[in-house]
């Protein structure tokens, strides 16, 4: 038996409905989002720290919130099953972490290339070798060019909102792309936090496959010689041009998502103290650590601003250029060894020697606010030991 919930306007559910405070983990926030998302089907496969959220989605299925749910045999199979289900014209959900993300890798560009509005949560963790189940978001750098939209949650509240809102952004006809919603594993998934939730008897309107910019794969459109997924690998110029324009259209669709992200997420980024000369720019839980670092340096008489980047794809290029126009120092703390966020920021702003790619922690290390504060203070004193 399906649970009876009231379908309400997306605008109302996402932005206006009165919310009540709950004290829940990030994994529970994922389930709360899916409970209200009118999802048809989910497929699960265990990996730490994602597993708990997909257990909870399984419980939702057992309670009648979803119409189908199963455990797949590995992440590649899960993402392929999710692709098939999405092709069939319904709303889907799955989640994974670190090594699971990499095992499933071949499917992410397929989702984007096939224009499926899949929403997938990534509870980021370390990637072997050496093995680590600890929070680390290097996997995000590997997904930057898959064609997916990518949102990075700072808190359980973000995780809830970004997942629920991702469906409505993903399913816009002019967008119709998959969305990855990322949170740093454990730090968000396994800690309790205050999360404001709209009523649980409300849910989003169902997905309407007819609004897709591509035919639904259900044999309900005239069956002419159309391959649903573009098969454009013949060796001739027309094929190359068609293939190239298909890719360009995916990039353009991600660009067209900007206004919807502005509307539903309140912008691709958020800024504290936009007139500052010194900024910390971060995404995910590094933002929370940076908020604490700001307090530490303020005690030493240094004022700095904070740029929280919520949308990694599309990337808030113009916004960053504008905000950092008069900035002298931009410190980018990250939970990964590669420093991908700093690279992204450097690639869009002028005079990018202003960008300090660090501090970076990985392998299970925490990111103490003192470390971020120290980085800023040393730069201000002209310290050279951290210069790259």
């Amino acid at each position, binding site marked *: 038996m399906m649970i009876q919930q009231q379908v309400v306007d997306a605008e109302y559910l996402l932005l206006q409905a009165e919310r009540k405070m709950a004290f829940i983990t990030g994994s529970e926030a994922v389930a709360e989002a899916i409970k209200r998302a009118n999802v048809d089907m989910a497929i699960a496969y265990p990996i730490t720290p994602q597993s708990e959220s997909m257990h909870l989605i399984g419980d939702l299925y057992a309670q009648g919130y979803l119409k189908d749910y199963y455990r797949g045999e590995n992440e590649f199979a899960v993402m*392929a099953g999710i*692709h098939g289900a999405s092709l069939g014209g319904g709303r889907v959900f799955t989640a994974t972490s670190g090594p699971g993300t990499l095992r499933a890798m071949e499917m992410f560009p397929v989702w984007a290339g096939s224009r499926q509005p899949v929403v997938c949560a990534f509870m980021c963790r370390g990637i072997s070798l050496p093995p680590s189940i600890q929070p680390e978001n290097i996997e995000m750098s590997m997904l930057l060019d898959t064609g997916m939209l990518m949102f990075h949650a700072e808190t359980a509240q973000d995780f809830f909102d970004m997942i629920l809102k991702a469906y409505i952004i993903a399913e816009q006809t002019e967008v119709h792309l998959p969305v990855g919603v990322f949170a740093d594993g454990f730090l968000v998934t396994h800690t309790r936090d205050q999360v404001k939730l709209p009523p649980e008897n409300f849910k989003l309107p169902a997905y309407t496959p007819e609004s897709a910019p591509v035919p639904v794969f259900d044999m309900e459109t005239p069956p002419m010689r159309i391959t649903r997924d573009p098969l454009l690998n013949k060796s001739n110029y027309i094929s190359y041009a068609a293939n190239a324009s298909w890719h360009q259209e995916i990039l353009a669709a991600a660009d067209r998502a900007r206004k919807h992200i502005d509307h539903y997420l309140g912008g691709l980024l958020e800024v504290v103290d936009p007139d500052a000369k010194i900024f910390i720019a971060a995404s995910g839980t590094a933002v929370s650590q940076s908020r604490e670092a700001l307090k530490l340096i303020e005690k030493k008489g240094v004022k700095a601003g904070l740029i929280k980047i919520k949308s990694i794809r599309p990337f808030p290029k113009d916004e960053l250029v504008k905000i950092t126009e008069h900035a002298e120092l931009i410190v980018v703390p990250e939970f990964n060894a590669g420093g991908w966020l700093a690279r992204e920021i450097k690639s869009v702003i002028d005079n990018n020697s202003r960008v300090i790619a660090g501090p970076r922690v990985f392998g299970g290390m925490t990111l103490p606010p003192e470390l971020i504060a120290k980085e800023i203070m040393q730069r201000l004193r002209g310290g050279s030991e951290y210069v790259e």
Partner: protein
Amino acid sequence: MSNRIITPVAEFEDLLPDDYKDLINNGPFFEKKSIEDLGSFKEIIDDHPHCAGCGVALGIRLVAAALPSPEDTLIVGTPGCSFFGLSQTALNYSTTAFGNQNAVASGLKRMLKIRYPERTKDVVVVVGDGGIADIGLDLTLHSWFRGEKISTIMVDNEVYGNTGGQESGMSRQGKVLNMAPNGKLFPKLPIFDMAKISGCVYAARVTVASPAKVGMTVRKAIFLAREVGPTYVQIYTPCPTNLKFPPNQTLNIAKEAEKDYYSYEELMTPEAKDYLENNLK
């Protein structure tokens, strides 16, 4: 789908391509056609870019003609030789990543069941030996273990054709192929035997030299997948280009194989047998 979806309105009919009109007026949609009728109706695949004498192309043609309800059939494939012909069939065809077909088909079948609970949508996997037995073997087997209601059809050319004639798990022992410079060191993978212990309610092994048997087994497999459980048909579709025989010898090669090591075989569970006796005339 309903007949009305494909029937053109009179005012626009003459603007449509001849190919389309031919399919609507003389095709297999809503009018039962079978392999025995080949040559007398417009087929959903009548053009393909495969090599001369391609066994896979013939296999696809026979499978397409045997579909009991092409108007409600969705084919899932994988990259390889098979997708060239399949992408030109006049029904929904999807091919995405290598070897993922049975997982895609699982998700698709379940979602179509959610969206069309009262109707039959046949989800049929048509893939070569590499896709099913090598790179996609775990996904193939798990779809059977789970009891997914899909039909899996292998067009077995015993080689990786599209990539240039490399050894596959379904190649014969001793065969010298690319990546098997001293000949293949182990026998053909026993996928047919694995089907029966992995949850398939029906499994059949045929060759393109016996078109009537291909038609019958494909039809049974699709009927059984609707109600009873997963089904598997393995069709030998020899490859003249990579197995190095003249293209006009494809049927002879298949006939020889049928006598030698590719004998016709059909297995089914008692439940499947009952179902066929009661439902398939």
